């Protein structure tokens, strides 16, 4: 199976500050990959480089088989991106938001209409289609944002803290939807703060100060460090690393 994302020694510096420090990883096609780390660990910077929003300082990478330096345009056609702030137009209706992003991806009129129907069925958005996106409750806005980012059926979907501020019931349902996408072969690259969500991932990486300090299957990692759950594991790893860097 070809790899959806490969990164090799990817680095991003802002002046003297190294936000992402030589990270390397691969994500297989159809995999649900959890990209974890404390606040300011460099997750968002890494995702922005993969999506073509930022140029890396050094290192290599491919997304969907396309080089992140040279094949930006092809990458953009094959990925979806849902960011921490839901990037919807509050003064347009849910339907108009979907229609607009679909048109930007140049979907044919008929295809676009079918997809909107299909997605609003799956995500239960039907009754909200004619309401202004700005007036939707947070949980529904988040579903709408998910719908807009998968309208063009991307092969790889990047989600940057997609469930921030949403209640647990909504979060669980949201992950159900993500799993449906993964079953259909979409590769998911997710950052999150919620460790219960991280356990849904096939594999996770944990970032600290721009570096990947651990990478593997969640249950394997829990066993390796003999912790009761991911949350404990995360806290332990991060505080240990912080002490180490304090000693140096």
């Amino acid at each position, binding site marked *: 199976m070809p790899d959806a994302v490969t990164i090799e020694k990817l680095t991003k510096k802002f002046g003297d500050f190294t936000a992402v420090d030589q990270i390397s990883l691969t994500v297989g096609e159809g995999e649900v990959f959890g990209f974890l780390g404390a606040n300011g660990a460099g997750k968002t910077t890494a995702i922005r480089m993969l999506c*073509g929003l930022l140029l890396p300082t050094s290192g290599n990478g491919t997304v969907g088989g396309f080089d992140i330096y040279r094949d930006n345009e092809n990458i*953009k056609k094959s990925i979806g991106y849902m960011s921490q702030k839901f990037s919807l137009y509050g*003064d*347009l209706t849910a339907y108009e938001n979907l*229609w607009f*992003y679909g048109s*930007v991806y*140049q979907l044919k009129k008929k295809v676009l209409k079918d997809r909107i129907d299909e997605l609003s069925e799956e995500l239960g958005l039907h009754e909200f289609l004619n309401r202004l996106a700005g007036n939707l409750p947070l949980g529904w806005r988040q579903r709408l944002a998910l719908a807009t980012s998968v309208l063009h059926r991307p092969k790889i979907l990047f989600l940057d803290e997609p469930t921030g501020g949403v209640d647990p019931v909504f979060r669980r349902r949201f992950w159900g939807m993500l799993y449906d996408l993964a079953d259909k072969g979409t590769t998911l690259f997710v950052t999150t703060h919620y460790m219960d969500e991280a356990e849904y991932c096939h594999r996770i990486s944990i970032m600290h100060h721009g570096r990947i300090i651990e990478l593997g299957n969640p249950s394997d990692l829990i066993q390796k460090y003999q912790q009761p759950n991911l949350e404990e594991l995360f806290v332990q790893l991060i505080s240990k690393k912080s002490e180490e860097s304090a000693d140096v």
Partner: protein
Amino acid sequence: MIQTILALMKKELYQVIRDRNMLRLIFVMPIIQLLVLGYAINTDVKKIDTAVYDFDRSSLSREYIKAKTAGDYFIVSSENPPVLDAERGFKENLYTAALIIPNDFSENFIEKKPVNVGLLIDGSNANSASITSGYAEMIAMQFNRRQLDIPEPIVMRQQMLYNPESESIYFMVPGIVAVLITMITAMLSSMAIVREREIGTLEQLMVTPITVPALIIGKTIPFAILGFLEMSIALLFGVLWFGIPFVGSWSLLYGLTFIFLFTTLGVGLFISTVTKTQQQAMFYAWFFSIFAILTSGFFSPIANMPEAVQYITYLNPLRYYMIIVRGIMMKGASIDALYPEIIAMIIFGVLIFTSSWLRYSKRVS
């Protein structure tokens, strides 16, 4: 590319239509501005309030006063107010001119000796003061001619072309139209992209396959359409309400307005590449508009400005458009007469669009 541009245009127009305040700003403001500015910026001097001191009290002096006030220029607002208090009337704005006829007026006049008549003028508004003194002199000369039958060696017969009644409103309204579309298009376009940056949708757009030219075109055409709408409302109102004569070609004016909008939208776009918030963009656009209006010849002729400032006005696209609007509307100017202005606007537009494009591409990567 076409589909993307159309989608962006439609989206942008929807957003404007949804915003009630914006609609009011676009459609009601031009009418209010035209009404207020059209009446307020009136440089015509008529009905000058005058205090008259007639120390002669003869039939001749009365005739002289009658001649003075015969036209619509001087009206007698107080007769023989207390002499010692003459200045107070100026301070209290009771009159702006005072005519003083000495007691030897008719005596000297009949004996063909030099006659002195005094005229005090409120000079605090320099412009209308000089016009007032011009009227007074003209009327005095006519009076001489009539009473004494002196043949004059040189008679100048003036005729004013294009605006025979010297109505300042015919001159101001085309200017106001130009000012309105400058402000509206520069401000709207400067905020358009910054707003998307602020709410985060710009980032979302940048991960789509949308290209920079498509984004720029799709974001600016809706504002060009609004600019045309704005201009049409203002023009129609000017013609129907104020009865402004429109001498030239409508299609030429619209065609050249398109080129002008290219420059103001370019400025707006450029502003949106150097600012981070809508507030900043608003201030920059405001600054540009003020600069553009003051150095356009809208209020005072460019020829009256200091030489250094006159050179600066060449950097102002509104300066060229002002000549075009007034030229077409008042003089019926044809395209041959306007080539220098057209070329200047095209150069400005191409430069500003290219530089915002370059800045834009740089920022995104």
